């Protein structure tokens, strides 16, 4: 019996070793291709950065009041383009690496599966990026406008708007990646609705006095208040 156990262990060890030995060239090919891609991507990004710096790209863009810098002002246009070039080439390198892995290891079907799914991943990444930028921009816009309107729940409104956009983005990303199926739709509906309801309740309760005052104003003429603004002339 022990001999049989020993034999089966030896067989499985041999199979695993053979498998690893079969995969090793593929892994090596993948690593080599990836390393070359990183080097090329880095080199190209460096060249692009040097060119953009030489032609004073940031200054030209800022002169033209570009929308890019309004929406994503943390990074300069040069950095955005340089990073796009770097990551673009890295992704291409990754795909080539997977292809090389498949060719070297004789594992069929991997690259086909990956290549079919890659556009979804890229689309989802773009969605996530745009959603983040839009959420931050809208949240700040709402916050500043609400503060300038003297609304005491300005932060609540801004946070609500931010989360609404983020939840919407997350649902779109998951849907794009075909993850979760109907659960995502359902969860999104509940979350989105919940946020809207919570905001409506919070703002409604917070503005109760304001609403009642404005209703009273229709019936009773308010006491004359001294108007200060007329004496202050800003312009």
């Amino acid at each position, binding site marked *: 019996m022990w001999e049989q156990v020993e034999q089966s262990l030896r067989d499985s060890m041999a199979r695993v070793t053979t498998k690893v030995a079969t995969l090793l060239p593929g892994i090596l090919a993948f690593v080599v291709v990836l390393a070359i891609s990183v080097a090329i991507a880095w080199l190209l990004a460096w060249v692009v950065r040097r060119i953009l710096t030489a032609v004073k790209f940031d200054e030209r863009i*800022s*002169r*033209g*009041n570009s929308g890019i*810098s*309004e*929406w994503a*002002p*943390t990074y*300069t246009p040069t950095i955005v383009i340089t990073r796009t070039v770097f990551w673009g080439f890295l992704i291409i390198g990754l795909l080539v690496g997977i292809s090389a892995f498949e060719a070297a290891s004789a594992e069929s079907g991997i690259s086909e599966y990956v290549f079919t799914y890659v556009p979804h991943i890229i689309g989802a990444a773009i969605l996530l990026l745009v959603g983040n930028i839009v959420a931050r*921009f809208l949240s*700040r*816009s709402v*916050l*500043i*406008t*609400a*503060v*300038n309107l*003297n609304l*005491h729940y*300005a*932060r609540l409104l801004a946070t609500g708007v931010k989360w609404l956009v983020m939840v919407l983005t997350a649902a779109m990303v998951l849907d794009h990646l075909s993850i979760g199926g109907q659960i995502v739709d359902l969860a999104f509906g509940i979350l989105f609705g919940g946020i809207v309801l919570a905001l409506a309740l919070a703002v409604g309760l917070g503005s109760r006095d304001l609403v009642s005052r404005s209703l009273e104003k229709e019936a009773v003429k308010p006491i004359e208040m*001294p108007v*200060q603004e007329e*004496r*202050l*002339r*800003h*312009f």
Partner: protein
Amino acid sequence: MARIEFPEETRRRIEQIGGADLVIGVAGTVDVQQLRQRAASALAGMPGKVVIAYSDASADAAQGSESTMTSAEFLPYPQDTLDPGSTPWSQAASAHRAVLSLAANLEAHACAVIHSDLGNFAPEPLALLTTPVRDGQADLVMPVYPEGKYDGLLNKCMLAPLSRVLFGKRVRYPLAFDFAVSSRFIPKLADANAGRGAPAAPLMWPVNLVATGDGIIEQARLAAQHTMLTEGLDLTAVLTQLAGSLFQEVENCAAFWQRVRASHSMNTLGIPSAETPTDVRPMDVRPMVESFSLATRNLEEIWRLVIPPVTLLELKRLARLDPLEFRMPDQLWVRAIYDFALGYRVRNISRVHLLGALTPLYLGWVASYATEMANASDEQAEQRVEQLAQAFEENKPYLLARWRWPDRMNL
């Protein structure tokens, strides 16, 4: 912003007129009949060939070619189609550019622009504005309007002192509706983009262009102050436009203003207007202080992107004060403005957001000023504004340091 291309009809009329000694342009639409009636008295005794440029939405061009009781030529110019939400300043800037382009085409020796309310379309103010530029004593004559201590607050606290620091000229109204320009600077102002290598600000800042061109600037005390149609104008929208335009100028003229060491007073013509009774009625500043406090609680994450922690701490401390004790130190205000100017340049936050976040700070300054000046006369208020302008100058090294090494200061 290139020089304006006029329609064929206007070009024919310019050729017909030939040239001019003085072009007087009315910035904005005006009632032609009223303009013609006023022209006879306003131009009485004015030497040389005068052309009056105007824009009249209802008049046809033929009407403009008629001559009435005055020897002046009337030249209608087409009004730019502006965004319905445009402010009086952008409308005036568009009209100023049109008038200056006409003057450039006519090769006029001098050009004066006046507000469409025709408040300064009278012999004395016209003489004060145009004589120095016609005689070659000055390249630009800017107005000094009579004003009370609570008038033109945005100009007092930001536009005038910042312009003074940048260009070294103590001009009271850098963003004026009336001014006169010599022939040397007419083409430069008509095409504000020429030679600057950067887009012109949407508003007209004649002082900046003349100062950078090494021109001579004088001021003229005018009797009429223009009533701004501020109804329906949102403070944040106007502040965004005016401050944004000036910050754009700060960026455009950085090479110039970094070399300016001190400011110089301007020769001011005319007699100061009579003293008006001092307004000592108490002012309720609580709403403005509350706006400021609300902003310090909510806008910290935005202010933090442009304002260094020390200044932010000072602002927070201010927000805890009682409205009656609320005083914003000059240095704090000045440095905050410099920080915002730098924030506008480095764009680590959207410019729309940056300028929107300036409104509560401005209201804080207004509250502080109004409390401090409650019992002060107009003259004392003027001294106070001068003190603030000096604070802008004293803190210029701070702006220079931040401008040159923006990353070093956020400590």
